[in-house]
């Protein structure tokens, strides 16, 4: 078995080097620009690439409000490749709004209109929402029809996942108030999990890196912030502004209250950055590993061929780790949200008991 693996890998490397033998000069104009390619893959775009074809894209609608207040809606294929459509264009190389839709004023300056377009990330968000709703609505329909009978196959797997999160985290931490916050927490878990997994799929319904966009993760963390603080008990707010510490820490100079208020804001910030950095980091590593092949091939075609074997193996390994990380990050986001909500729901009953 071990000899078989050694022979196959030698054969693979030899085959790839044979390609190098056929064409040993690097053709002109094939200089790779790593930074540009990385940011193009990780960022947002106005069209969605079709599988296996770099040039064709599904053009998505651009919806903008121009400087004079009029709304415009047109397909992004009209401004593709630098074309100008009715004084709108995509910012080019030197402009401050590179890659985004700008309005060209008469005197040549650019104005960035209020941009409400359906970009790749927005479309991926809609696809994620459709997938999550479809899974859960069909599961609910199954229960309505079949009562207590256990579901099988995919529905059974989804039920096991829901049990893992609800009975594993939400119920033990929140105890009686679990059913009040469970809809939000379960939705956030499934949304983050499905969005992370879709970001790993390379072709059409998947290619967008949704949770690698800090705006998305910031909005999710803001939802948790809202749920924690709006539904927090009076005891929770009292603990922030007048905590149970010696008087000199809070009276003339409110040291502890300032630290506590700061803590209220750093918790969602940590949630944001953790999810964003994990997802973007995973994608960036895979893209960089794949780009290594081209960078080495630009130097010498033989080195490029040999690198491709190692690089592809490593990329597949990193993608598998990314699948694990997707689940773990969704789990950690939900667990920390549950923890923050449970801390804000504390009643302070032991204090009143002592006072009595």
């Amino acid at each position, binding site marked *: 078995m071990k000899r078989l693996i050694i022979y196959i890998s030698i054969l693979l490397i030899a085959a790839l080097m044979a390609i190098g033998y056929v064409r040993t000069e690097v053709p002109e104009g094939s200089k790779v620009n790593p930074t540009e390619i990385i940011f193009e893959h990780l960022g947002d775009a106005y069209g969605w690439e079709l599988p296996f074809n770099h040039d064709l894209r599904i053009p998505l609608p651009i919806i903008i409000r121009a400087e004079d207040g009029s709304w415009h809606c047109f397909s992004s294929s009209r401004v593709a490749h630098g074309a100008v459509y009715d004084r709108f264009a995509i910012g080019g190389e030197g402009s401050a709004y590179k890659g985004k839709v700008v309005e060209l004023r008469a005197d040549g300056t650019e104005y960035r209109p209020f941009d409400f377009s359906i970009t790749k990330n927005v479309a991926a968000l809609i696809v994620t929402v459709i997938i999550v709703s479809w899974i859960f609505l069909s599961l609910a329909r199954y229960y309505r029809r079949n009562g207590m009978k256990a579901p099988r196959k995919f529905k059974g797997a989804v039920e096991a996942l829901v049990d893992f999160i609800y009975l594993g985290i939400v119920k033990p931490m929140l105890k009686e108030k679990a059913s009040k916050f469970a809809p939000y927490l379960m939705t956030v878990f499934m949304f983050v999990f499905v969005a992370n997994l879709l970001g790993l799929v390379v072709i059409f319904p998947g290619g967008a890196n949704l949770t690698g966009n800090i705006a998305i993760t910031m909005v999710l963390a803001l939802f948790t912030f809202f749920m924690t603080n709006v539904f927090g008990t009076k005891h929770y707010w009292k603990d922030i502004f007048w905590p149970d510490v010696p008087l000199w820490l809070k009276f003339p100079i409110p040291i502890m209250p300032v630290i506590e208020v700061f803590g209220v804001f750093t918790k969602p910030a940590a949630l944001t950055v953790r999810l*964003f950095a994990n997802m973007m980091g995973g994608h960036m590593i895979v893209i960089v590993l794949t780009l290594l092949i081209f960078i080495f091939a630009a130097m010498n075609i033989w080195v490029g061929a040999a690198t491709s074997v190692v690089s592809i193996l490593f990329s597949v390994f990193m993608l598998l780790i990314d699948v694990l990380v997707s689940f773990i990050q969704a789990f950690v986001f939900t667990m920390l949200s549950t923890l923050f909500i449970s801390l804000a729901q504390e009643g302070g009953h032991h204090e009143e008991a002592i006072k009595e």
Partner: protein
Amino acid sequence: MLAMILAAIDGMLGIGACVGAGLAAIAAGLGIGKIGASAMEAIARQPESTGDIRSNMIVIAALVEGVALFAVIVCVLSLFL
């Protein structure tokens, strides 16, 4: 002479970012290594609680890695801002 000093200060940005990312990697390695070590010892003491220990270990590793990733994000931001 002044131009050389200014160029050196400009280059320090790159060095600073890389050293910061390296330190974050060391810190993440140390932290997660400690978690893994104590998890292994706990499993060796009581093999039937392997499942519980494994889930907790993964959760805490994710939290520690989150902190290391904050440092990496700050380093990357320093290159662009």
